[in-house]
């Protein structure tokens, strides 16, 4: 059974910050980002340091059995409107199969811990897989599109209706034992 955990970027060690930068600059991940330029180490360090006092976004390192595996972030957190935009990627290619559990954790944290009512997101049109997971498994609703991206929303009511079943399947099919946040 796998233990999933999430470590806030403000608590990362130097080695973990370096690992995240390495992932973020990998072509496979960088090309899917809105900001797709290669990030310099100094820029990365400044960015992580800047997160300490911010309430509009949060970033977490995703670990499976204490092995760093990916990144989960929540952007444009609006506590009045109770919305945010989750984003995620698997950095360690050996764990690409953990995408579904990571998706589940993103929704669980946003809706159940942060109290969001609505999650918004943009998915690049050249990333049909993320779009498919969001739409078909998590019940996302199309809200518009640009030339390059699709807009998708997730409602708390849909999450509440689906989460028990989803958790049962994530737990069984991915042998997940528990989820912790720090």
């Amino acid at each position, binding site marked *: 059974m796998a233990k999933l955990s999430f470590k806030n970027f403000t608590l990362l060690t130097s080695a973990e910050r370096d690992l995240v930068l390495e992932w973020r600059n990998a072509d496979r991940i960088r090309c899917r980002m809105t900001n797709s330029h290669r990030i310099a180490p100094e820029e990365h360090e400044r960015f992580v340091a800047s997160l300490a006092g911010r309430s509009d976004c949060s970033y977490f390192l995703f670990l499976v059995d204490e092995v760093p595996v990916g990144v989960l972030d929540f952007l444009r957190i609006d506590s009045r409107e109770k919305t945010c935009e989750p984003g995620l990627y698997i950095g360690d290619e050996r764990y690409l199969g953990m*995408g579904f559990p990571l998706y589940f954790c993103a929704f669980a944290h946003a809706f159940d811990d942060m109290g969001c009512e609505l999650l918004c997101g943009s998915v690049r049109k050249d990333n049909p897989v993320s779009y498919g997971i969001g739409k078909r498994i998590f019940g996302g609703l199309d809200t518009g599109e640009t030339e390059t991206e699709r807009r998708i929303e997730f409602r708390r009511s849909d999450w509440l209706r689906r989460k028990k079943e989803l958790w049962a399947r994530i737990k069984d099919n991915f042998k997940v034992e528990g989820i912790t946040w720090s």
Partner: protein
Amino acid sequence: MSNSEKYLQAFVTVLGIPAEDVPGLTYHCVPEWDSARHMELVAVIEEALGIMFEPDDILDFSGFEKGRELLSARYGVDFSK
């Protein structure tokens, strides 16, 4: 092409694994079968067999044999043809 052949071919095409190695495969047991390929596999099987997976079944589709069971029991796919 029979339904069995179409089903097998979907794995070969999406995962890039020889047909003889496909039986017994389970999700994430080989690097080729990750979350992204899983969704591709679902799409290819749906098109090949003319069905549409329910959301819960996408997650329950955890292996080659399990997929056959689901398709047969829940979508009426006849693998004897």
